């Protein structure tokens, strides 16, 4: 049974990747999870400098979801490369570094530093974080800025470049094509959905930042739809992400055209999620007589070949 997938020049032993911001820098999990089980992991977003992130409270539970405004608290890319990266070296999994910036130049500089570091498989570009005042979603919501950031990172590294797209746009296919034109090797779809939760007793937002990014099973149908749209719009591979907690969830994205998937909020809920999903995937393949997981990619069919309603072609 073949679970290995190839995405953007990366050979992953299976299609499961830990999503940025839900897996720390990877090493936090090593005590109770065999990191070798993962196809890959994406680090928490990194800037040139360490960052404090947002004031608290930063997280709130909502129905089947998690609303967060962490604000990219982190150690900075140099500390990551020096102190954390060597601790990931023993593991056979693809380390993908999520790069951030307040400016186009900062994204490029972070990517250049990562490019020089041993043991990094690819760069994911964070142009979709909803919880920062500059950069993040502000760049990923503007096609010209999206092009500028992706092109600048493309120039600054030899590693595969994977922009992570925001769902908080009217038409994700525009951004998928722009990113492809700027030299992206693959796309991660999607980041969190912009939300607002209100404490009605206090008449204030439940998060100190105000709005936040919604993740978890609550957003999965949105994510599947957008990943499906993006996959149809570009030639480069799409990595699906949004509310995956089981093999069935992962398969939704793969049937919609994704070559690999990322597990996010489920990392908080169940540290053993990878073992479970891998077992469920094997079971699915057995039940469906599949030898290669890649054979499900894009396997979604519509009754009578009718195009789905509600989505412009």
């Amino acid at each position, binding site marked *: 049974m073949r679970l290995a997938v190839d995405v953007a020049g990366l050979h992953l032993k299976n299609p499961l990747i830990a999503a940025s911001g839900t897996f720390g820098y990877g090493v936090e999990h090593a005590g*109770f999870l065999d990191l070798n089980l993962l196809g890959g992991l994406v680090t928490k977003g990194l800037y040139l400098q360490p960052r404090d*992130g947002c004031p608290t409270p*930063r997280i709130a539970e909502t*129905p089947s979801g998690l609303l967060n405004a*962490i604000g990219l608290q982190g150690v900075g890319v140099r500390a990551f490369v020096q102190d954390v990266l060597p601790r990931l070296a023993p593991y056979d999994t693809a380390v993908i570094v999520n790069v951030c910036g307040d400016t186009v130049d900062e994204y490029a500089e972070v990517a250049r530093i990562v490019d020089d570091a041993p043991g990094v498989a690819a760069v994911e570009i964070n142009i979709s974080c909803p919880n920062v005042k500059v950069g993040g979603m502000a760049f990923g919501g503007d096609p010209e800025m999206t092009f500028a950031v992706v092109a600048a990172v493309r120039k600054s590294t030899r590693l595969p470049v994977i922009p992570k797209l925001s769902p908080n746009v009217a038409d994700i296919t525009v951004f998928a094509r722009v990113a492809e034109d700027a030299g992206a090797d693959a796309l991660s779809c999607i980041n969190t959905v912009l939300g607002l939760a209100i404490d009605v007793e206090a008449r204030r937002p439940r998060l100190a930042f105000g709005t936040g990014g919604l993740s978890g099973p609550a957003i999965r149908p949105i994510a599947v739809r957008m990943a499906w749209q993006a996959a149809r719009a570009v030639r480069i591979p799409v990595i699906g992400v949004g509310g995956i907690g089981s093999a069935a969830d992962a398969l939704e994205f793969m049937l919609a055209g994704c070559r690999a998937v990322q597990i996010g909020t489920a990392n*908080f809920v169940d540290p053993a999620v990878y073992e479970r999903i891998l077992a469920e995937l094997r079971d699915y393949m057995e039940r469906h007589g599949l030898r290669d997981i890649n054979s499900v990619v894009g396997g979604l069919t519509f009754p009578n070949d009718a195009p789905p309603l509600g989505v412009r072609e």
Partner: protein
Amino acid sequence: MLANRNAPLLAREPLEGAYVLLTFRHPEVAAAARAGQYVMIKAGASADPPLRRPFSVMTVDPKEESFTIFLKAVGAGSRALAGLRVGDTAACLGPLGRPFTPPPEGSEALLVAGGYGIAPFVIFADELRREGRKARVFYGGRTAGDLQIRDAFAERAVPVMTATEDGSLGHHGRVTEPLEAHLDVGAAAPTLYACGPDAMLHAVARLAARRGLPAQVSLDPWMGCGIGTCLGCVVPIQRAEDARPRYRCACTEGPVFDAVTVVWSGEQSSLARRRALEAAPA
């Protein structure tokens, strides 16, 4: 040793009101948990609510490979746990977090609890007895029904002073009042430990700072993961080596913190205040 397991419920003891004691089988927690440490636990696999919940370990039984938590069913997560039946399992990761540090020899441990903040002090009473330290509990709540865990201390021969805001049990008022009274007459140089609502922790921290006593507080912010990756539970902490407060994970660097390092909302940490005073020209 930290372990993630489906822990079967061995025993369920409903108490008054929405309170219940739940005992789970989890060999690693039973063997290694120390006072102040907690588990992240969730009943069932429903996506709603999605997250596990942190609960202090109240007691352990290494022979039975079990541990007990004390909870009040107040929200969806705790209600689901309280509704488990013996034999059901709960997803459980632990033991987690930084425990209480016992007092130096000769220093009496004063354990100040508000409501279900009492839980870690039962296992702490056992640890203190093993270490040959004296302990005394100050246990406060809104009403008598909030003070469910009193027999456990009687069994351990640990004196308990109770306080309720409505006067239905013990001192009529806040738990810090009998604590202050004891500090005036009790043994010199005690060490304070506090677990409960933020306002009580802050009051204990202020009191300790005023009297120059060491205090450890167990903070209870909303936690997402328990392992330091979601960064949702951070609290502003300023240690001696920090030029300014830094957000630190309560889940991994706490939940127990030295009270002088905690930056309470709208204030500096007492450590920073002390240093500012020392630096100021006389």
